[in-house]
């Protein structure tokens, strides 16, 4: 049985056909400009205040547009970007260690396992240097050396030190920078900020995005907001798995509703599973916490050689331990890329050698590092992470090895956008983790922050200007039939959720969905498993709409209703992820199909058949989606199998 229909190929028609290093200049030069005096008359809706949305809102407002902005938290400063720890890449080459725009471009295309669009990645690398300048000027306190100059480190399997950081709180500091810039524009009256307001649907009039329907999460009031263009900056959808490192309320609703209204969803099955997270401790577990990957620089990963060994780690002698990454990948050892490290941990646990509750964990041991460097030095480097681990688990990693396990962390897939960051709905732009653009099948460490800020500060503004300058905007009012219909649908959906009054909580559905996704569409995917999931998910969706219990009313704060609405979208998205994973009969980056591996168990790409981005068109609820392929060309970085042995 097939689960989809094949549509026409799709292509990005916006990147100019000139050498790659000239494309962005040329595109900006060709773009139409909006007369500064006229900008005030154009309004732009931005949903989201993370790095991508916050940067975009501040910049467009500075340029003179009227910005109407939304976030579901009580303050724009709390967007999920705040939680990023490690750092942000930029090709500054301050270390003179051979870095360049071209090398960052090359590393990102290769790291993405040749499933990203070269034009976009090159532009990202080009823009990276300006981001650091902008952030420093805003007062972002990056780590500095005694000279007073910026410090950098190497991160995530690359050989140059191009990662700028602010202790273990880089995302926080960058977001506060963007938030402050946005605050300045709110104060100046250029941004109309709506906190605690959740987008429920996208308003499309005459084929173009013209507004959103949103619910005030305090009063329950459902309102329409109309504008000339809509920017979605709503983050990733890792919470489809229930347990992930994402913030508890991160969700896919904004992009999923846009998808239902016509925006193609690209590569939904590309998810990144981060190898170093704290394992779950029990049924009540509500989210997973990441331990920065920098720990792998000094920690050694091992499991007992004997399956089912329940001795405490200090009782297991050296010769009965398997430092499996060092054994299998002698070249990179504990520093292999994320997807490889994650899968290796799963394989060990599948062999029964996992440690901790349920055998779902491996040791990350610092005993050698402490012997070699001394406890003080280790404390200096990792003190805050060790403390965080201790706080959560009650165990002291200076004495007992940490237990870690992979967890869902990031979604490379997202709404399909062209080089201008415009989705297949004209006037609907998508930035940050919400789009699919720059990371292919696997994202390198410290590149999401770079992409979010590149999109928001530098790429979106001129392209949005071009769209506004090239379009005519008829006045749309709330009485327009398309607007009325969208409001009615959004309201009807909430009314329905409240009226079911069944016997299962929203979380119980979300957990079940998460388990199915983790088992069948997680670290390793098989045809059998995916078909099984695709049998079960529609049933679960129907059961949800029959027996979910959402207490309270719609005219008050109702967190159960908010969750129910989000989970209803996750249920549909989960299905599309499985269809995408099933159709892609190759392994690439974060997508590992057990049928497509080399004799020694490494991922095997199939460039003949799958060197494309898969952009899915919505076919109707419970109907088959339509696949549009965007062929990917590698004119600069030549196709090659990754090899980390």
């Amino acid at each position, binding site marked *: 049985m097939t689960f989809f229909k094949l549509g026409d190929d799709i292509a990005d028609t916006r990147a100019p056909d000139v050498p790659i290093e000239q494309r962005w200049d040329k595109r900006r030069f060709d773009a139409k400009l909006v007369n500064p005096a006229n900008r005030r008359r154009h309004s732009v809706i931005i949903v989201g205040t993370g790095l991508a949305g916050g940067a975009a809102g*501040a910049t467009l407002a*500075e340029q003179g547009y009227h910005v109407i902005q939304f976030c579901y*938290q*009580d*303050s*724009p400063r*709390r967007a*999920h970007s*705040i939680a990023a720890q490690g750092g942000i890449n930029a090709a500054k080459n*301050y270390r003179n260690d051979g870095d360049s725009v071209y090398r960052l471009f090359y590393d990102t295309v290769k790291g993405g396992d040749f499933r990203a669009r070269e034009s976009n990645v090159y532009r990202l690398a080009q823009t990276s240097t*300006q981001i*650091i*300048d*902008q*952030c*420093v*000027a*805003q*007062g972002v*306190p*990056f*780590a*500095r*050396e005694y*000279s*007073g100059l*910026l410090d950098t480190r190497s991160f995530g399997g690359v050989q140059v030190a191009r990662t700028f950081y602010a*202790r273990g*709180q880089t995302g*926080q500091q960058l977001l506060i920078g963007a*938030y*402050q*810039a946005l*605050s*300045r524009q709110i*104060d100046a009256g250029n941004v109309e900020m709506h*906190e605690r307001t959740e987008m429920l649907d996208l308003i499309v009039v005459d084929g173009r995005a013209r507004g959103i329907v949103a619910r005030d999460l*305090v009063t329950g009031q459902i309102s329409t907001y109309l504008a000339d263009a809509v920017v979605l900056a709503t983050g990733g959808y890792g919470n489809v798995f229930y347990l992930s490192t994402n*913030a*508890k309320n991160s969700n896919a609703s904004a992009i999923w509703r846009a998808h239902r209204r016509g925006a193609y969803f690209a590569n939904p099955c590309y998810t990144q599973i981060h190898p170093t997270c704290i394992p779950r*401790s*029990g049924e*009540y577990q*509500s*989210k997973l916490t990441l331990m920065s990957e920098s720990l792998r620089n000094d920690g050694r990963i091992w499991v007992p050689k004997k399956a089912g060994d329940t001795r405490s780690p200090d009782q297991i002698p050296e010769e009965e331990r398997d430092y499996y990454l060092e054994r299998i990948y002698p070249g990179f050892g504990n520093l292999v890329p994320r997807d490889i490290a994650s899968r290796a941990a799963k394989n060990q646990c599948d062999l029964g050698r996992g440690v901790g509750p349920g055998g779902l964990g491996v040791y990350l041991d610092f005993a050698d590092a402490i012997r070699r460097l001394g406890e003080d030095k280790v404390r200096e480097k990792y003190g805050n992470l060790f403390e*965080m681990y201790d*706080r*959560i*688990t*009650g165990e002291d990693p200076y004495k007992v090895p940490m237990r870690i396990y992979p967890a869902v962390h990031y979604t490379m897939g997202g709404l399909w956008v062209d080089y201008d960051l415009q989705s297949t709905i004209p006037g609907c732009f998508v930035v940050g983790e919400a789009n699919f653009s720059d990371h292919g099948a696997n994202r390198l460490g410290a590149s999401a922050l770079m992409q979010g800020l590149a999109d928001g500060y*530098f790429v979106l503004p001129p392209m949005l200007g071009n769209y506004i300058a090239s379009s005519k905007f008829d006045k749309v009012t709330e009485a327009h039939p398309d607007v009325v219909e969208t409001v009615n649908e959004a309201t009807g959906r909430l009314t329905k959720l409240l009226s079911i009054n069944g016997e299962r*909580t929203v*979380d*119980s559905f979300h957990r079940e969905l998460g388990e199915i996704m983790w088992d069948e569409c997680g670290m390793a995917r098989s045809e059998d498993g995916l078909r099984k999931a695709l049998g079960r998910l529609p049933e679960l969706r129907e059961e949800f709409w029959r027996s979910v*219990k959402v*207490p309270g009313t719609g005219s*008050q*704060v109702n*967190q*159960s209703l908010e969750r129910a609405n989000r989970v209803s979208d996750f249920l549909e998205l989960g299905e599309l992820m499985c269809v995408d994973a099933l159709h892609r009969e190759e392994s690439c980056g974060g997508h590992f199909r057990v049928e497509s591996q080399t004799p020694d168990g490494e991922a095997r790409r199939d460039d003949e058949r799958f060197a494309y981005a898969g952009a899915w068109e919505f076919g109707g609820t419970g109907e088959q989606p339509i696949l549009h392929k965007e062929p990917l060309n590698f004119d600069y970085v030549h196709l090659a199998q990754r090899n980390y042995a």
Partner: protein
Amino acid sequence: MKLTLRIWRQAGPADSGRMVAYEVPDANPDMSFLELLDVLNERLTLEGDDPVTFDHDCREGICGACGVVINGQAHGPRERTTTCQLHMREFSDGDVIDVEPWRSVAFGVVKDLMVDRSGLDRIIRAGGYVSVNTGSAPEAHATPVPKPIADTAFDNATCIGCGACVAACPNGSAMLFTSAKVTHLNSLPQGAPERSERVLNLVEAMDAEGFGGCTNTGECTNACPKGIPLDSIATLNREYLRASLGRK
């Protein structure tokens, strides 16, 4: 563990609110405090009761969304810890735990444990930024910043805007929060041109929002999950004095 939670229930700003006791017979020492509330909420939902409303998002101690008063202490008994990072192993079997929202004149209760902290955002809007438009920044290495200054700026920039300092202060003052922003930006060369305007505007906004005055009780810094020190308040006072004299 078997616990009794006495939780503040308030349907909305107009309701007067009351403490309601709930038994949680199956708490686990490895649960976070918010997971305990999740477990309770699952049960309340199935029993047809209204689940307890509380703010939260990252559950990693960094977004600043969570925060309740636990047995009279903002964010509970453990030092330098947000509510989401507090684990039940800090409590004992049989404990009775009081759970209340932040209480302060400037923070109205929205529902149950959720409060309105938008006053803190308005303080930042009054000048807690450097006025630099996108694209106009000089090369990052044009201005070296001595490491000790960069470190002070960073320490103050770690404030998560949770409002525990306000909740802990007998006067409901937002001095610690405001001083963290003033110290962060005013110590850096990038923040210098707007140094005077910034401190004056932030303090004016703080007063306008109805936050109380500072009488140096130090409760704020004890409650602060990020350890923002009282020194920052001294810095704010110094900056304020300097700016007021300069303005005359």
